[in-house]
């Protein structure tokens, strides 16, 4: 790892000021992606601004019809939260399957979504639950937050504060993990929102990050059952293709995972 300067921010405004002063700084969440990347010398930020000790970024609470999760909340805290398990069971399942237990003790929801790895789980959860990302500057609908591979709507000095999830009637998640890395080769999040509308969001498979499947959403709108999506296939040409699986393989996985997610909801 190249040299870097570590700073521990006590507040969101202090963190933004520290990044503003840094030559090439990066915000640090749990560090479970950033630190391995720095160890490989694939990233060399001059400064790291640790956000995880900021009190405003912590905790899980119910606000009206939504569950609000602070950006510095770890995957393990989300997975074991009674509130999340009761109101957003699909999201609890999702968080309990990220990485491994040690990674879940450190990794945070804010860090994961800010990185927007195309095979990360949370992007499907946020888009699939119609969540809103609250930042230090504004509120962004999840669909507008995730722009493309490793790219979000965040500005350089903008910090994710929390994510607000409207409580759905039903939610479910299923992923086919890469056997070595546990990243999703295809992960599908499904929800039936309070107003009855349906969302199907896919991570891991798309060549441009998380995406929705309109055809599955309308099929599930009239029949919430695995069979309703069994004959619906996403376009091979829009899927990733790499040593782990061809685009045709991933397209097939999307249908299979969608069926399992509905069965689990």
């Amino acid at each position, binding site marked *: *790892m*190249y*040299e*870097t*300067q*570590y700073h*521990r921010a006590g507040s969101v405004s202090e963190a933004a000021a520290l990044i503003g002063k840094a030559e090439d700084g990066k915000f*640090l969440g749990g*560090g*479970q992606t950033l*630190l*391995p990347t*720095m*160890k*490989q010398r694939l990233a060399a930020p001059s400064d*790291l601004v*640790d956000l*995880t000790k900021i009190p405003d970024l912590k905790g899980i609470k119910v606000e009206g019809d939504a569950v609000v999760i602070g950006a510095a909340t770890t995957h*393990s805290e989300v997975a074991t939260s009674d509130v999340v398990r009761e109101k957003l069971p699909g999201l609890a399942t999702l968080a309990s399957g990220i*990485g*491994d*237990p*040690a*990674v879940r*003790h*450190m990794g945070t929801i804010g860090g994961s979504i800010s990185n927007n790895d195309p095979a990360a789980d949370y992007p499907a959860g946020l888009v699939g639950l119609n969540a809103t990302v609250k930042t230090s500057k504004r509120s962004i609908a999840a669909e507008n937050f995730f722009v493309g591979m490793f790219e979000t709507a965040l500005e350089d000095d903008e910090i994710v504060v929390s994510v607000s999830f409207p409580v759905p009637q039903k939610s479910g998640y299923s992923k086919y993990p890469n056997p*070595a*890395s*546990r990243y999703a080769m295809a992960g599908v999040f499904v929800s039936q929102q309070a107003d009855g509308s349906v969302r199907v969001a896919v991570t891991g498979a798309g060549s441009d990050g998380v995406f929705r499947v309109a055809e599955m959403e309308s099929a599930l709108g009239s029949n919430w059952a695995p069979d309703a999506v069994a004959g619906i296939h996403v376009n091979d040409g829009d899927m990733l293709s790499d040593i782990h699986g061809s685009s045709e393989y991933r397209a097939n996985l999307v249908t299979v995972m969608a069926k399992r997610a509905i069965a689990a909801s």
Partner: protein
Amino acid sequence: MSKVSMVLNGKSVSADVEDRTLLVSFIREVRGLTGTHVGCDTSQCGACVVHVDGKAVKSCTMLAAQADGADVVTLEGLANGGDLHPVQAAFREHHGLQCGFCTPGMIMSAVDMINRHGPGNLDETTIRHELEGNICRCTGYHNIVKAIKAASDQMAGMAQAAE
């Protein structure tokens, strides 16, 4: 350079280290506790697992500076004098190791999973799932799983006897 202070195996320690110092380097090189191992360069193998504020983490994927002010326990902090921790004793009893390189991380992850699930609440499937972040390249998982199950059940018995 930053001054980093923490409680390490019950003892307050501090040192001036470069900010890029990993927690595992602090433990091994600054404090000379070589029970914690580094088995990979990619945060995948879990040989370096320690407990930070009671939670299992990969000490190769955390800066020492992030652990400033924390309570850190390594493999060396488990035994009570000459009495092995029940998980250590079970690994010996069930031959839960071959070359032994992954053992420190396996044991620290095992203690963490028993703490989280409660002694006596682990079955084989759960243990195997919980060990996803710990790699044994001798592939000696079978006896590792047996040792963890035995330790978990024995600790449940100890807890019951204490009541």
